[in-house]
């Protein structure tokens, strides 16, 4: 177990270094630099000002010098300064991280819970009309782009039915505190979490169903059935639990893409998460901030994959760290 964690830590360090290296040089390939992006926003700038800005941002130094300076700071966990926001990168990420985690967590919870549940029932009714309906439904969701779903949900639930807010995370105008505040955040969370989770919900439904059907013909199921175990118990304990393994694997693999998908969802729902900040920092050539976000996101993905590995061991006693 400890050796596993040690190895994971080594992995994290390696991945982090690689990501920093690649990102740093990849981002410099984009034409235009931070000074030009800032000038673009100003609507005007004098050459003297641009030069001063480049000096201030360290953009006048050789690229490799810039990289070593950055890497040196990174070793002390100093993510640098975002010129675009005028704040330390770490502070900015810290501000946005809770919103991102809340959105991702709810979306994943929604997708996992309902997906597995629906897949479970679809497998039980396989071949019947209910199963066909489920399949068509999930296929439809699978094929619909998230931003469109988001817009439609807003139009139906916010504008027409007036049940939920259009976007943002809280109703600033109301000055809420305590329980009312939590309720307000949850109301704001519903639509973006559903939008972000919907695609993965469809994936997990189909995956669970297919996996359960494949497992139901296996020897251990036949044995259980021969032993006289009740059908429900077989389905739940023997088949479903095993069917969860590929779902968990897929989840680990898809985490990165959920983070990516969050950019769109956060934009449509004005959700103050990291995805949106990543997008704007790219447009602003705010390399420090973007590097910081990518660095933290990659750490997050690696970290959650370690958790997935641990869950794996819990689900399947045969898997042990060597």
């Amino acid at each position: 177990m400890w050796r596993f964690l040690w190895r994971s830590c080594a992995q994290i360090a390696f991945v982090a270094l690689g990501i920093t290296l690649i990102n740093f040089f990849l981002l410099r390939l984009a034409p235009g630099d931070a000074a030009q992006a800032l000038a673009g926003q100003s609507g005007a700038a004098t050459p003297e000002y641009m030069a001063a800005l480049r000096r201030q941002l360290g953009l006048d130094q050789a690229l490799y010098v810039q990289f070593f300076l950055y890497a040196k700071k990174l070793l002390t966990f100093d993510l640098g300064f975002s010129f675009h926001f005028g704040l330390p990168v770490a502070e900015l990420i810290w501000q946005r991280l809770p919103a991102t985690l809340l959105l991702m967590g709810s979306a994943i919870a929604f997708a996992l819970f309902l997906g597995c549940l629906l897949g479970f029932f679809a497998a039980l009714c396989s071949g019947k009309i209910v199963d066909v309906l489920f399949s068509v439904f999930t296929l439809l969701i699978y094929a619909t782009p998230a931003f469109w779903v988001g817009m439609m949900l807003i139009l139906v639930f916010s504008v027409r039915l007036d049940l939920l807010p259009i976007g943002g995370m809280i109703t600033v105008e109301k000055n809420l505190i305590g329980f009312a505040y939590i309720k307000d955040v949850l109301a704001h969370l519903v639509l973006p979490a559903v939008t972000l989770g919907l695609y993965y919900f469809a994936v997990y439904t189909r995956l669970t169903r297919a996996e359960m059907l494949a497992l139901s013909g296996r020897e251990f199921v036949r044995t259980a059935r021969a032993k006289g175990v009740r059908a429900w118990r077989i389905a739940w304990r023997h088949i479903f639990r095993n069917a969860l393994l590929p779902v968990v694997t897929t989840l680990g693999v898809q985490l990165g893409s959920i983070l990516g998908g969050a950019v769109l969802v956060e934009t449509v729902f004005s959700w103050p998460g990291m995805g949106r900040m990543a997008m704007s920092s790219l447009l602003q050539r705010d390399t420090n901030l973007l590097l910081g976000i990518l660095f933290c996101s990659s750490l997050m993905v690696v970290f959650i994959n370690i958790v997935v590995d641990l869950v794996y061991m819990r689900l399947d006693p045969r898997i042990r760290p060597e």
Partner: protein
Amino acid sequence: MSDKKAFFRLGFKQIRVFAGVAAAVIFGVGTAFAGTPRPGGTLSAILNPEPVTLTPVVNMAQPTQVVAGNVFDGLVYYDRDLTPKPALAESWEVSPDGLRIVFRLRKGVKWHDGKPFTAADVKWSLENLWKTIHPRNKPLFESVESVETPDEHTVILSLSKPSLPILSVINGVGSVILPKHLYDGTDLLNNPYNNQPVGTGPFVFKEWKRGEYVLLEKNPDYWDKGKPYLDRIVFRVIPDASARAAALEKGEVQYAPYNPVPFRDVDRLTRLPHLKVETRGYEWLSPLLYMDFNLANPYLKDVRVRRAIAHAVDLAALAKIVWFGYALPAISPVPSTLPTFFNPDVPRYAYDLKKAEALLDEAGFKRGADGTRFTITHDFLPYGDDYLHTGEFLKQALKRVGIEVTIRTQDSAAFIKRVYADADFDTNNTYNNAFPDPQIGVVRAYWSGWFKTGTAWTNASGYKNAEVDSLIESTGVEGNPEKRIANLKRFQEIILRDLPSLPLLELHFFTIHSANLQDVVVQGDQVYSSLKHLWFSEDPAQK
């Protein structure tokens, strides 16, 4: 058609008034009548995109100014016809030779932190910001030799050469006055107060939750007694255009300046009884859409080709189809909204395909076997679909006379580098705000000194004309207003003759607001100024 729309809007308004009166009679509730401002209420406004900073020190971006206009008062504000009116300066005089400008400041004005506002703040801001690093004002204030403050409420500017455009840029965001006691001796660009501004304006900065909102509250000690009417303003950051439209439709936001939704949504939204569209309040900006020609291009360096292109583009159709009528065909690089300087007697290029073809033939670029004369590229300003669609319109227009256009897409940093630093383009479309004096926002696109400096929205074409350069330079330091007007009119004639850039449209930006929001436009610089005149004739529908 617009009359018809106005009629319907009036109709709805009347129905609402009737309904209100009926309700008042039936329930015995007092209803506010138009004309008597009613204090109170929280205004939710749209801010898009999210600003980078809340103080227009060097960042002149639109969202920064929309917020800052509420926190900072200027020496003056601009009336609907762009004449300066007293704000922090109660009066001012310009000496006949233009070399001395005296401002007499309002007494008893306090910064939001309670410290008194004095002449020292103005002097400090001018010396440390306006004439040194301010991107737009530097050339205007450079000739200010000294600033004297004989007492706490008098500022005297002594100039080496006249600079009359100064009087057109001294509102709250045009020349922001910073509190000396918070900025003196600090790094101006990285001062933390840039993001938590302390001004003298009608609204006090409360909180900026990044990615979510900027919150302003009423300034209880505001010098303009009785104002502002609103208790709070919440500027909400809503990055998605459809979500902005939905928020307006639902009434979650009641004020949205600067083209908050795509044109195709405007018509639908304004047909709703609770929303109105407003194109006034942008006069101080006077935006003009234009196309630069890269004069180093082997085809475009021939003036006949540029004139042919001018003849080939139907500007009225561009205004109607791409800009949904929220624009007028431009005649000159100086928009007609600057009547003093606008010259209608410039060479014009009527929409005439035959003439365009004849000019191209004459220039020696005959149609090839496939009907194409030559191919050029087009880079559009990456500020949204309207500029892309403008590019597509130009592509189709030019195809008709045998010019093939390839449209290129990039983000704004790449656009600025390509056009203004590398001049690695053939044609583009972009816009500039002219401001009340062409010296501020127009001539920069034609003065040869700016070419390839990488400075955005300056000379992109590589145009170099000694007469134009000297006209621009002499007008900048001319103290006689008549002479300045004559110079600038001559400048417009030459530009339209040489056509280094083709003026396309005078853009009409629009604001969408709730119908129960009153006095939305009072000033000519309204969108960049404070919302202190706004009031709700009934409570906003907060759902």
